[in-house]
Each structure stands twice: as structure tokens, then as C-alpha cells.
């Protein structure tokens, strides 16, 4: 977390003390996923960002950090919820890749001629739109009908073609960033998803129970951080994502999540199903804090890419 982000969060947190949030019940807006969309930590939910009711416009600002050792993913962004119907979001992602990984990639590609290289950053921007189609996740009790939303995430990888310089400044592969190097053929893509969310009040021995299921059509490699499409696969794949949470108190949610990924690039960029266990704390309607253990499955030269995930959302 850099200084700018910390200051940003500080300003947001202190300024919200005088600004009212929306009217909806605490925790009903979920948290903010690392793609900027209201949801869980790694997947969208059908809820609209913020605590706005059908008459209100509210929003969220959030930041997330996932520490994977050789990789660090830092993300931040903001979302606006309009009349509990439409959600607009913007998100910046920064995947910091340690020099050991970049050196290993060059080592492999040059058959040992180049063995070390400086670390690099892969950045991606995401613009999201979500629309609640029907349903009321919380108040439609006594029925199985969930709240259902449809959304799109336009993703643009900013470092698809950013050259990787060696320590002496030489550029062995001009205009080739990590995503391109690993076989991705596009620098942008649009994910389309459908999310269904349902909360059972008192559903788990009196505690509230939340279930979310998301189906996503995507061309992204590792969420787009490793680019989009590949030479022999440029079509959409269907991925499944889910969250299951229990709220043992009005301010706490504990749960698990998963998210499938198609292994389009293979080789170094092989993808596996992402999983996490999380605990989210909602002290009041102004902010929430989430800690999770995320298992990303695999990243290049990191067979066990897992680590601590922290996420903070401020409600405006």
C-alpha cells in the first residue's frame, strides 16, 4: 500500500464521518471485489454498490491488497450505486512482479543467456457496469427467488506491450510486455456476467446465510492481468464463481469463495481455480474491513500462489 493510497483512504474515512450513507441495512451492500464491483472479494454479487435505496444515489471507494510473495496485487477504485438499480465502477489494478520471476522468464526464453532482470509492474484498468434485473436478496423471504443482476467489465491491460528492460537498460524484446511474452494476443477484453444472490434471514441456526452464484463469459487470462485470448483460443469461455457466507453477528461475515479459470495460455501461465476463506467486519455503515486467505492456484514460477488478502471499503 503506497502513501497516496493510505492518504486517500484516510481522507475518505474521515470525510464520511459527516456524510450520511444510504438507508439500506448494514452489510447489505457487500464488500468490493478486486475488480471494483460490489460483491465478495473475488467475485461480483447481485447487490448494487453502496447502501442506497430505490430513491438514493450512494457510492463506495475501496482498496485491496493481495500479498503472494513473488507477486503483490494492489488495487483501488470507486463505485456508484444509482437507485439500487445501476452500478458504475472504475478500478486500477497493479500486479508487482519481483525480479526473480522476470529473471526466470528470460532465463527460460533465452536458454540461460539472460538470467537476471529487474522486477516489473503489470497494470490494468477496469470499468464496470451492473444492472439489477429483478429480485430482492434480503426481503423476499419464504421464496427461493434470488436477486439477479447482469454486468459487464471492460478491462484494459496497460502493460501488454511494455518492454522489459534488463539491468543494463538493454531491451531484448521490444514492445513485448509480460502478457504478450506469455502468449496473450489482446490487451483488452470485456467480461459479461450474471449474478444471483440470496440471503436467508436466520437461515443458519438463526444466523443469516448468504449464497451467491455468478456465471461469467470471459476471454481473460488470469483476470486480464496476463492479457486476453491466445493464438489458438480467441473465444469466450464460461466460468463459474460462488460465495457462501454466514453472518454470526450483525457486523461480521465469514465465508468461502471460489472462481474457475480456463487455462487458455498453458505453460508458464497455467491457471487453476481460485479459492478463498474470508472474514469481513462491518462496524457501521461507513466502512468495512475484510481479511482473507486467497489461493490463486498458480502464477508463472509460483506453483503455490497464495497469501493474505486485505480489503477496505468506505461507503459514501
Amino acid at each position, binding site marked *: 500500500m503506497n502513501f497516496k493510497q493510505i492518504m486517500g483512504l484516510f481522507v475518505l474515512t474521515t470525510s464520511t464521518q459527516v456524510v450520511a450513507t444510504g438507508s439500506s441495512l448494514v452489510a447489505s451492500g457487500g464488500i468490493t471485489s478486486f475488480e471494483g464491483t460490489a460483491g465478495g472479494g473475488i467475485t461480483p454479487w447481485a447487490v448494487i454498490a453502496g447502501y442506497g*435505496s430505490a430513491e438514493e444515489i450512494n457510492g463506495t471507494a475501496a482498496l485491496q491488497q493481495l500479498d503472494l510473495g513473488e507477486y503483490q496485487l494492489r488495487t483501488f477504485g470507486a463505485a456508484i450505486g444509482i437507485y439500487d438499480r445501476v452500478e458504475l465502477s472504475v478500478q486500477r489494478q497493479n500486479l508487482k512482479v519481483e525480479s526473480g520471476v522476470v529473471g526466470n522468464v528470460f532465463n527460460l526464453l533465452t536458454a540461460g543467456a539472460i538470467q537476471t532482470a529487474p522486477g516489473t509492474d503489470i497494470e490494468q484498468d477496469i470499468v464496470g457496469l451492473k444492472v439489477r434485473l429483478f429480485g430482492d436478496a434480503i426481503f423476499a423471504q419464504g421464496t427461493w427467488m434470488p436477486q439477479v443482476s447482469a454486468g459487464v467489465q471492460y478491462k484494459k491491460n496497460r502493460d501488454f506491450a511494455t518492454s522489459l528492460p534488463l539491468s543494463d537498460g538493454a531491451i531484448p524484446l521490444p514492445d513485448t510486455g509480460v502478457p504478450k511474452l506469455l502468449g496473450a494476443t489482446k490487451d483488452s477484453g470485456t467480461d459479461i456476467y450474471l449474478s444471483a444472490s440470496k440471503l*436467508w*434471514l436466520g437461515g443458519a441456526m438463526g444466523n443469516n446465510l448468504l449464497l451467491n452464484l455468478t456465471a461469467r463469459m470471459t476471454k481473460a487470462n488470469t483476470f486480464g492481468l496476463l492479457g486476453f485470448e491466445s493464438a489458438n483460443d480467441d473465444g469466450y469461455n464460461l466460468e463459474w464463481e460462488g460465495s457462501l457466507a454466514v453472518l454470526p453477528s450483525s457486523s461480521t461475515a465469514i465465508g468461502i469463495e471460489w472462481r474457475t479459470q480456463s487455462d487458455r495460455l498453458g505453460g508458464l501461465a497455467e491457471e487453476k481455480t481460485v479459492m478463498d476463506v474470508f472474514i469481513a467486519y462491518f462496524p457501521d455503515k461507513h466502512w468495512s474491513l475484510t481479511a482473507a486467505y486467497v489461493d490463486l492456484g498458480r502464477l508463472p514460477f509460483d506453483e503455490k500462489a497464495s497469501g493474505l488478502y486485505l480489503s477496505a471499503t468506505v461507503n459514501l
Partner: protein
Amino acid sequence: MKKGLLVILVVALTACAGQPSVSLYDEIGGSETLDKVFGLAVNRIYNDPKLGPHFNGVPKSHLRKMLTEQTCALIGGPCTYTGKSMRESHQERNVTEAEFYAVVEHVQQAMRLIGLTYQQENRILAALAPLKKDIIYQQTTTI
């Protein structure tokens, strides 16, 4: 040995079966508790500057009695709700979703202050929640 196991099994089963037979209504202390909860909730609602005006002309005691009766009936108590339907009583009042949520929060607070557990609170809310669709934005339905 076999007989011993069977006895344990039967005892365990009846113990399990015995628990859910206590209705939520009895568990929380019946209408006496509900009356306290809604006494407090109605006070809070009438004192809320955004909600109070909606209840001009409705005596506090009447609303308290109706809410107690209705909730009692919905959570397995021996009551019959004698009031108007939700659609009828909210007709032309144009209750917004924000106002509805504010009422829910007052009722939640009242349940907590009276000493209901979080789990009892959730189960009561589950019984009341479906009323939302008949409460908000009822101004146009009868024309």
C-alpha cells in the same frame, strides 16, 4: 449392547425433536415481549422526524397493538391479526424504500434493547420481511 445403543439413539432423537417444537413465539417470551419491543419501536418511529409525520392521527397504542398482534401471528403465536392488510393500511401513503429501511432499523434496535438474541431477531425479521412488497409504493395499486 445393541439395546443400549438403541436407547441412546432414541433419547438423542427425541431430544433433537423436542427443541424445534418450542415456537419462536414461546422462545422469546410471547406477546409480553413483543409488546415491549413494539412499544419501544413505535416510540422511536414517532420520534424520527422523517417517519413521524406518516403516523399523524394514528394513536401510538393502536400501532403498537397491531404490530404486536401481527408479529405474534406470523411467528407461531396464538393471535389473530385483526388489523387492515398491509396494502390497505399503506394505501396512498407513498412509503419509500428508505423509510421502510428506517422502520426496520428501529425495530431491530428495539429487539436488541429489549434483549432478544441476534438469532431471534433474524428469525422474526424473516417472518416480517415479505411484507415489504405490500408496504412500499402502494399509492397507485387501487386505481
